[in-house]
Structures are given as structure tokens and as C-alpha cells.
């Protein structure tokens, strides 16, 4: 199995496959329904001017996410 890292440490412009995140918490329930489920491919597009929040591309659309939530999301970085 590939090594996982927190989404918050993924480099800008890098792609990764979603591995897991906590089963509880309003943020993660919503993310799940917006299509971020284990196995989904995502790209960290950019960060806001002050480094937080993050902009992520998932299933062809863009989503913002705070760094604090991204820390709890484990991803497997895809080879570039």
C-alpha cells in the first residue's frame, strides 16, 4: 500500500488519491456527499493568499477546505 500523508502537506499542483478521514464531524459528512470518498482523485490547486484555506479540484469542480480539516484527511500522493 502506498504511503499516506495529510492532505494539508500535499504540494500545490500535486495530485493524490483520497485514502481516509474521520467518520464523524459535520465537515466530513458534507465532504463525503460532495464526492470526496476514498479512492477519489484530487488535486491541490492553490492556497488562498494567506496560506489558508486550500482550493481542491475533485470530480471536475473546485472546493475550498480549511487547513485544519485537511490535516485530518489522509491521501496517497500520485506519482507526478
Amino acid at each position, binding site marked *: 500500500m502506498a504511503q499516506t500523508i495529510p492532505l494539508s502537506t500535499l504540494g500545490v499542483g500535486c495530485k493524490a488519491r483520497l485514502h481516509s478521514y474521520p467518520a464523524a464531524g459535520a465537515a466530513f459528512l458534507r465532504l463525503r456527499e460532495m464526492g470526496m470518498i476514498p479512492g477519489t482523485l484530487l488535486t491541490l490547486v492553490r492556497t*488562498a493568499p494567506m496560506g489558508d484555506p486550500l482550493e481542491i479540484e475533485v*470530480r471536475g469542480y473546485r472546493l475550498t477546505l480549511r487547513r485544519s480539516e485537511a490535516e485530518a484527511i489522509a491521501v496517497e500522493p500520485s506519482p507526478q
Partner: protein
Amino acid sequence: MSSPQPSSFSSPTPPSLPTAARAPVYALVGNPNCGKSTLFNALTGLKQKVGNYPGVTVEKKVGTAYSQHGHAMQVIDLPGAYSLAARSPDEAVTRDVLLGRRMDTAQPDRILCIVDSTNLERNLYLVHQILDLGRPVILVLNMMDLATSVGLRIRVARLEKELGIPVIPCEAAHGKGLIELKLAMSRTDLPLPRHRWDIPGPIAPAVSELQASLVESDRKAPLSARAEALLLLTDQDSVRVAGSTPLSERTTEILRGWQKRWQEQGMDWAATLVASRYDAISRLCAELVERDSGMRDGISQSDRIDGVVTHPVWGWLVLGGIMALLFLSIFTLAEYPMNWIDDHIASLSDFVKGSMPAGDLRDLITDGAIAGVGGVVIFLPQIMILFFFIGMLESTGYMARAAFIMDRLMSRVGLNGKSFIPLLSSYACAIPGIMATRTIEDSKDRLVTILVAPLMSCSARLPVYLLMIAALVPGEQVPVTTKVGLMLLMYALGTGGAFGFAWLFKRTLLKGEPPLMIMELPPYRLPKVRDVFLQMIERGGLFLRRAGTIILGISIVLWFLSTYPKAPEGATAQEQMAGSFAGRAGHLLEPVIKPLGFDWQIGIGLIASFAAREVFVATMGVVFNAQAEDDEDTAPLREALAGARWPDGSVLFTPLVCLSLMVFYVFAMQCISTIAIVRRETNSWRWPLFQIGYMTGTAWICSLLLYQVGTLLGY
């Protein structure tokens, strides 16, 4: 809010066959940013009724569309939602209307689902949930032109076959596909969706058991019971969201039993269900959507714009520039219609004065009713311009970027980026600012934003600041630097107060989970000016209706207080004011405000300001008997103020008193229009009363400190 609903059991006709006597009712649903409002406007034109769902501040829009044969069809525009498992009051309304849980809205006969074709996978998630509802559905593939331009080809016929429902490609913004859509909508024989997806094995028995219990114990319609059962399993919160019907004990027990069993097995049932829906959707999309891979990889137009707009340096400049433009247009453009309204109110008042015999009734109409309504209408141009700007920023997609950029700063006080625009708008007027808080999903964040918004110095405080600055600095000419410096100080004080209180409220009164910043960043699009105009007119009308009635009432009360009891014949306006109830109230108030450096005459101004802050200037004119003669010039009034004395002969308006008064106006809640709007937006008197208390209390304490410390220091 709603109660168990007997619904479709007793319904004499199946949902797919609305009776000839009644126009079919369509619910229009879709994700945010998919062009839903554009389609609604295109279908119904100006035949719309906008109101509120009782008990919640969610806009209810109902319109009438006409088929090609002229038959009327009712369309309910439901709030945008990503899922039926509601996370916000908006989404809860969408869910409850679709499930027939709301008493105030009939369950729609048919459902019109609109999706953004460029973003099919995520949009289909909601559609997938809706297909389970057991109602006829028409699927509208909107923005087909954009999908083609990014290299997507969607096999419409195949999708129709897979789902068993009519699928209509459409470009709502250009009116394309509307005829086909109306033809489908007027069909009498709309089929029920055929699409069946496989509920994961371990969960399927739970769904059937819950479904049976929902039908028997909760009197749910058999067709929608499956959808309800699935919803119970995917969304632990849905049971508790306001407006939903409590479940029967039996169903709750079954639900708990299954959840316990799964927990022991270590299974995340909700995640499994969501994943299996997305699996089904992915499989569907793989067959239906062809991607022109060559066109996908290039940097999109939106990305190029975002490269500048969210740039660490340019981003701030763009944001600052847009905000500067916004305020410039509010203060310059709004002036013309405001003067026009002012003139017309004055001439209407003169007309009444000329055509009615002198007396109390005439004064009631001119000084009470016309002046009161005029005081509301005068703000309309500013409010409309703000709504127009907010609408344009939303329509182009910039609003989401502003929230994205500002989130970090807003998070320092415990809010999120979405509070930024409402707070900023409040510099012009708190009313559109408070109405703009509807985009904030979290109810506590929204409430905090509403509570602090009136602390941002609005344009109605400007005349008071200007008068006090003029009175503060002796001599004919006030140096520009002093003027600007003091003005900036007042704005900074208000802004600091707003953020400070937001921080405090988030830590004490409205403690909640740290706010989320999960927000879609839609691609930039050309603004839909027609939709923006429609929304601006709707909101303006809403403001007039909501605030108008309360303000009219209070204006009449204030008129009464300053008119009665009548002074003896031949008394001046000044003597009349002094002897009136308002004057007496001023005297009564004096012990409370004397520590701030104010006398009873200023007290009258404070009371009158309750109608609107700028009334202070006119009241001071009456109290100190300065006739400014409808002039912008504050010079005569300034001289009158300079001559005002305490009974012991000391100067009333010392520089310290002027400052103390300005600080009082920075913090005090003195605007009935805002109170009326807060009452409507929070659905109770509790919050507006709290707001009056905390703001006016802060104002009193700050002015007290300033005046007392200033006096001690010998100013």
C-alpha cells in the same frame, strides 16, 4: 414546524396524474451554481411570488409557467442543495418540501431537476437521491454549451433510457431548450423513474425493515418511504434538524438496533451508502460522457483569472479596487435618486399642507406618516445599488473568491469568509448586509454576523459625524486632515467593535464548532444581468414591506411624542419640543446621560434618533432653533450649537462632548429599520432586543469613560 402528514394515502389520484381542475405543481431543485434561478426566471418570467417559509428565513419563490398550449403550471423554486441530507436551513426546506413534511407547502406533484452539465458527477448525487422519491422527474441538463466547449459530449438518449425519465438538454441563459422542456412538463403521462441502484448487501435488509416501519408507524407514503429510510441511514443529523417530523418509536428503535449492530461490526454504514451512490453515478457517467481529452488539460479561462484574483499581491488589490468601486457608486450614484426622493417627499408634504386645513390630522399625515415613510424610502437607492453589486459579485463567481481570500482573517474572530461581504455592505447600510447573511449556512455564524453588522459605521451616521466634527473644531473652516482623521477614527472604532464582539460572542453566547469553509468555487461566468435585476427588485420590495410597516408605526409614535401635549398658542417650535412628551423624556433621561456630558436637549436628539440616526441633525435644528432651510450647509446649526449652554452658563458642546457624542453614535443601536429586519431575519424579538441592549450599553460605557477620563485630564 410541520407535523406528520397523511398525504398520499388519501390522495385520490396518483402523483403522476394531476387532476384537470388543478395546475400541476413542479418543484425545481438543483445544486447551487447550476443555473437554477436563471431557469426559474426563464420559465416563469415576472409571474413570481416571493415570500418566506413560515418559521425559517428561507426565501419561498413560487411562479407560474405556461405550457405551449397556454395551460398554467405552478413552479416552486426550492433553495439550492447538494444533498437531501440537510446541512443548512435552506437544504432542510428543500428536503422537507420534497418529502411533503411542510404544512405550508403542498407536496409537489412532479420534480424538475436541473444539473450543471460541466459537473455531472457531483450534480447527479442529488438527482440520484431524488429518483428514489417515487415522483415523476424531468432532468434538465443545463449549460450544454459550456460542456461542449470544455470537450464533454453527453449521450442524452442513453441517459433517458438508463433513468427512464425525460432528459432535456438546455441553455437556460440563452433560452435554448425551453420549448422542449415546457412540452415535457405539460405531458400528462410522465413516467416514474426506472433507475434502480443496488443498495449494498449488508444494508439492504435494514432499508426494507425501516421502509416497512415508516409506512406502518409513521404514515409515510409507500413510494417515498424508501427514500426516507435511506436518508435516515446517511444522515444522523436529519432527525434533529428543525422542521422535520419526529420519528415513531418503533422506527427509531429499528434504526438504533441496526446502527448498534453495524457499529459492533466496525462498519461505517453512511459512508458505504454514499460511496455506493457515487459508484453507481461513476458507472453511469463512464458510459454517458465522452471526454475530448485534448481539451481538458489546458489551463482554463477561470484558472487564468484566479491566478490574478487570488494572487498574494494582486488579489488584495483587486479586492480593494472592487470594494472602493462599490462604495464610490453607493455614495455618488445613490445621491441623485436620493435627492429626487427627498424633493418629492417634500413636495408631497407641501401639497398635503396646502390642500388640508391646518390641524393635528394634517400634521400627523405630513410630519408623522409622510416623513416616516420618506425616511425609509430615502435609503432605497443605496440599498438597491448594494443589492445589485452583491448580485453581480455572486453571479460572476467573484463572491466565492472574496470569501476564499478573507477566510483566514475572518477566522481570527471565529467567523468564516462568508461573513465578509455582509459586514462590508454594512458600511453603507446594515439592512442589505443583514439580508445578505442568508448565504451563511451555519446558523450561529449567521447570527453573530447579524448581531455585529450594525456596528459597522453606516452612511446614516455620516451626517451626525459631520455635524459633530463641525461643532468640535472652532472657526469657519474645518481643516481637512482633522475631518478625515476623526472620521477614520470613528470607522476604525466601529469596525474594531464589530470584530471584538464577534470574537466575544463566538466564545461565549454562541459557542459552536469551529466554522467550516467548505465552499464550491464556481467557474467565472458572465453575469446574468436580468437575474441580478430581478433579485434586486425583489429584495428592495421585501425591505419596503418588512421595514415599512414597523417604521411607519414608530414614526407616528415619535411624532405623537413630540407634538403632545400641545404648547399654548403662539409658542415657538423650540418651546413646543421642550414641553412635549419627548422633551419630558429628555429631562427624564438627563440623569442617565449627564455623566456622558449630554443634557436633556441632546437627550431629545437621542430619542428621535431611534427612528434613524440622521434624524438627530434635524432634531437638533428644532431643539436649538436653527433654521437650516433644507440646506446641506451645517453652518447655521453649528453656530446655534456653539451658543448652546448649560443652565449654569458653561458651554454645552465642548470638544469632549462632541467626541463623546460621536462615540455614542458609533456603538448605539438607533435604527428601527435595522431592528425590524433583525426581527424578521431571526424570527424573534429576542435578538433585536439583545442587540439594542448590548450596543447601547457599550455606547454608554464608552462615552462615559471618554467623558470622565477626558474631564479628569482637564479637557
